[in-house]
């Protein structure tokens, strides 16, 4: 690790002040991605500003028909929250499948969404559930937020405070996890929303994306068979030592079908 200075922010204002003062700083929450990145010397921030403990970033509640989750909510908190389990059980189930128990005890929703790893789980839920990313400056719709591999609409000095998720009638998430890392080789979140069906795919391509053909087919008939004739577009599929792009595209379809099956067997809200 290169040298840096650690700053513990005691309030959001404190954090924003530090961010302005130190343009080469990085924000630290759970550190489950940032610390491994620093160890590999892939980043050289002048300062780490620890926002993991900020009161302004905590809290889980249902408000105005939406589920609101603070950015500093740990995966464990989301997985075990009675409020999340009641409002969007698929989101709690997704959180329980991230990484491993030790990672879930530290990693945060805001951190995962800010990092936008193309194989992370949360982006699929955020996009499928039409979530709004609330920052210190503005509200960003999920559709405008994710901009490809590790790229987001966040500007310098912008901090995610919380996310607001639309509550679906039913939803389900299925992923084929890489056996060593637990990251999604393909993960699909299917949400039966009041205004239609939304299908978001993570892990398979350079960034999370909506599979609109599947959405149309499932709007006609919410059943795994509705996806039989469809093919996932290969254009942006990832290809690496783990899987070819054709394999990943097929995996996305298989996970979509499994998610639909799970959704159909879940209780309607």
């Amino acid at each position, binding site marked *: 690790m*290169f040298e840096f200075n650690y700053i513990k922010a005691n309030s959001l204002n404190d954090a924003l002040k530090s961010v302005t003062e130190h343009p080469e700083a990085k924000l630290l929450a759970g*550190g*489950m991605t940032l610390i491994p990145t620093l*160890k590999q010397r892939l980043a050289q921030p002048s300062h*780490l500003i620890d926002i993991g403990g900020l009161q302004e970033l905590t809290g889980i509640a249902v408000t105005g028909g939406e589920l609101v989750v603070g950015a500093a909510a740990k995966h464990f908190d989301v997985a075990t929250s009675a409020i999340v389990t009641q409002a969007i059980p698929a989101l709690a189930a997704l959180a329980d499948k991230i990484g*491993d128990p030790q990672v879930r005890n*530290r990693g945060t929703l805001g951190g995962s969404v800010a990092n936008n790893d193309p194989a992370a789980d949360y982006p699929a839920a955020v996009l499928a559930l039409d979530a709004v990313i609330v920052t210190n400056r503005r509200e960003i719709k999920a559709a405008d937020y994710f901009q490809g591999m590790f790229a987001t609409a966040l500007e310098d000095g912008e901090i995610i405070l919380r996310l607001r998720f639309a509550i679906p009638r039913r939803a389900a998430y299925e992923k084929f996890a890489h056996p060593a890392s637990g990251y999604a080789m393909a993960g699909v979140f299917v949400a039966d929303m009041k205004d239609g069906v939304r299908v978001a795919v993570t892990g398979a391509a350079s960034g999370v994306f909506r599979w609109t053909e599947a959405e149309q087919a499932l709007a006609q008939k919410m059943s795994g068979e509705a996806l039989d004739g469809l093919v996932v577009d290969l254009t942006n599929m990832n290809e690496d030592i783990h899987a070819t792009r054709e394999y990943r595209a097929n995996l996305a379809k298989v996970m979509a079908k499994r998610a639909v099956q799970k959704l159909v067997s879940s209780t309607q809200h």
Partner: protein
Amino acid sequence: MTRIELTVNGTKHVQEVEDRVLLADFLRDQLGLTGTHVGCDTSQCGCCTVHFNGRAIKSCTLLAVQANGADIVTIEGMSKNGELHPVQQAFTDCHALQCGFCTPGMIMAISAMLKDNPNPSDDEIYHGLDGNLCRCTGYINIVKAVKRSAEVMQTHK
């Protein structure tokens, strides 16, 4: 350098640490608690697992400065009054270790798991040990030890 105050195995420590020092290295090098092992240093193997305010975390993926004010328990803090913790005893009884390198991390992960779920099923045990690797691949006996310690801990509650 930053001054941190933390409790480790019930003892309060006030120490100066370099900001980039990992909790695992702080425990090993500054406090001499070498029971916390560093197996991979890439957050994969779980050998460095300790309890941070009661929850299992990988101490190779946390800065010592982040542990300022925290209550840390390491493998050295598990036995009480010369008596092994039930999970430690179960590892001995079930022959759940071979080389023993992963054992401290396994025991810290399992004891934390049993706090959340005192009577886990096989699937719940596998899910709960997702973050710990045993390269001797002695998982069968490790799972046996989880079940044995769960039984013991429930009987002696």
